[in-house]
């Protein structure tokens, strides 16, 4: 049954027949292809043109204050290529020449400082892999299954290796006064993005990064400088970082009051909900990645992450959460980074209700959608880390559903 693989890929010779793609000499085996330097900075194959970030036009009034989504369904491993990291801007992409960029530290410090990019390159550097998830990821699913594809339901997350200077190093250079308990991080963009960060976190693992996946930050990710706030909501990872102010109280900025506060059913709203809870999603099969090959061996693959640290275990269910099997986590397991999991199954061709459930090293795991709603209602927008269900049908197509 598995012979010749999926119809979408196969040259479709019958049993015992020879495939002309093999028996005839193909052009690419005969004639020279493009030479080196055809693209000094390389780009993906034209056959991969469908693997792009996508937005949802009705979601926002303007593209400059908007979001697009990482095509998680088409990716594998734990690293997100820079060109596919989702975008979220509040005033568009600031275009800043590195020579014109400055970072100021002021407030409750011994000495207010200004750094050029060249100055920052002289501090000891570190390299760390982290996921970045927008607190609003899966936010459109609070009221029920809505968008048909993990790119849309879970695509406001990416994971790259950053190079930068620990925030602590820079704060130490200015000298934190004893009453300095909070840090305000400010961007140079047209939104002048600002967030308050408690000093404990600032001194723990925050990084002032200038490179991602080896090269300079991408413009839409804050070139030339961004703050990394590992495990915490993406909005705090201030892009185009130009200022760090030390203070004794939080600032209650717009993105920590009007936005990024979580309205509960009782009308109360939680603030300073920073950590991104354990979460996972099956990226294939998924609505944008139907099964094209019929029954037999099937790779169920997905991503899991937790703002608390490492992922300890991912369980997968094919019956909507009645029974669970522990999946195989493969590849590096970094704290506060994406983890890749696989469950290799023999599909019998019948309907599946596929779910995944992440458990982190601190014992936190994902709730069901209903358990989360029972606690918070449907108006929270942010921090929806509930278990996602995909309905795999006999024909291999997949739908975003909710289950009893």
């Amino acid at each position, binding site marked *: 049954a598995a012979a010749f693989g999926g119809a979408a890929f196969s040259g479709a010779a019958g049993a015992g027949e020879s495939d002309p793609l093999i028996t005839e000499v193909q052009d690419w085996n005969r004639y020279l292809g493009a030479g080196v330097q055809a693209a000094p900075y390389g780009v993906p194959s034209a056959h991969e043109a469908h693997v792009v970030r*996508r937005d*949802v036009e*009705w979601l*926002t*009034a*303007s593209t400059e204050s908007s*979001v697009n989504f990482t095509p998680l369904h088409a990716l594998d491993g734990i690293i997100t290529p820079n060109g596919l990291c989702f975008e*979220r801007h509040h005033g568009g992409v600031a275009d800043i020449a590195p020579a014109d960029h400055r970072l100021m530290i002021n407030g409750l410090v011994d*000495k207010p*400082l*200004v750094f050029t990019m060249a*100055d920052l390159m*002289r*501090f000891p550097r570190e390299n760390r892999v982290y996921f970045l998830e927008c607190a*609003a990821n899966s936010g459109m*699913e609070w009221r*029920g299954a809505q968008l*048909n594809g993990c790119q849309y339901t879970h695509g406001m997350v990416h994971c790259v290796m950053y190079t930068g200077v620990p925030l602590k190093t820079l*704060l*130490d*250079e*200015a000298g934190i*006064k004893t009453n300095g308990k909070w840090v305000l991080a*400010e961007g140079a963009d*047209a*939104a*002048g993005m600002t967030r308050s960060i408690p000093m404990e976190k600032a001194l723990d693992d925050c990084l002032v990064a200038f490179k991602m996946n080896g090269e300079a930050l991408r413009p839409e990710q804050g070139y030339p400088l961004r703050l990394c706030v590992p495990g915490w909501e993406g909005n705090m990872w201030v892009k185009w970082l130009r*200022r760090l102010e030390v203070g004794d*109280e939080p*600032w*209650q*900025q*717009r993105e920590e*009051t*009007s*936005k990024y506060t979580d309205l509960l*059913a*009782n*009308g*109360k*709203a939680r*603030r300073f909900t920073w950590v991104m*809870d354990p979460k996972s999603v099956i990226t294939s099969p998924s*609505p944008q990645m139907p099964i094209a090959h019929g029954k037999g061996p099937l790779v169920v693959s997905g991503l899991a992450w937790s703002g608390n640290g490492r992922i300890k275990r991912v*369980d997968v269910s094919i*019956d909507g959460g*009645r*029974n*669970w099997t522990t999946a195989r986590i493969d590849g590096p397991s970094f704290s506060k980074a994406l983890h890749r999991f696989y469950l290799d199954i023999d599909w019998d061709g019948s309907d599946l*209700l596929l779910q995944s459930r992440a*458990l982190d090293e601190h014992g936190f795991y994902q*709730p069901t959608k209903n*358990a989360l709603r029972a*606690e918070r209602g449907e108006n929270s*927008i942010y*921090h929806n880390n509930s278990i996602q269900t995909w309905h795999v049908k006999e024909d291999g197509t997949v*739908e975003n*559903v909710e*289950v*009893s």
Partner: protein
Amino acid sequence: GDGEKFGLGRTATPDEVAAWDIDVRPDGKGLPEGHGTVAEGEVLFTDNCAACHGDFGEGVGRWPVLAGGQGTLKDDRPEKTVGSYWPYLSTVYDYVRRAMPFGNARSMTNDEVYALTAYILYLNDIVTDEDFELSKENFTSIHLPNEANFIEDGRAEEPFNERKAEPCMSNCKDSAVEITMRARILDVTPGRANDDEGAGAGSVD
């Protein structure tokens, strides 16, 4: 601060700090000298803001709503505005000064931002007198109605976060699982055939 020093960077000048240190806190820290009235704010708002936010802060199309919505926070579709949701007035001053009008940020004077803030209070019935003047001096005396309804992060106390038990692995539900809802029914996925079915619901912030 006695962490290691590298001697890198240079001292920021007072003018430089002043130029960038424009943030404002609820306790009034960071407020500049200045003042502006509701009436002045109305003119400024009509000229600079109403095209997006509407004459009465009601929002044009998908642009943000700034006024109204009081009493809706427990509704199916809460309307979160300065009047209905925001905890602190300082945030209005800070944000308008740093980020509005959208596309021409940092273009309003400090007095103009006082006036616009006063007008947003007026649109939200928090002040009712068009002659009301907001200033550095009286700013912290104004409190927004929803301030008391902000609470700390309580996620660790939610039942599924209590870590009392390992999650269930088998026979976790009594009966076979039923599908209760399908995305297909409200398919708003871009790039699909039925895109013209119209917009979905929800927002990213």
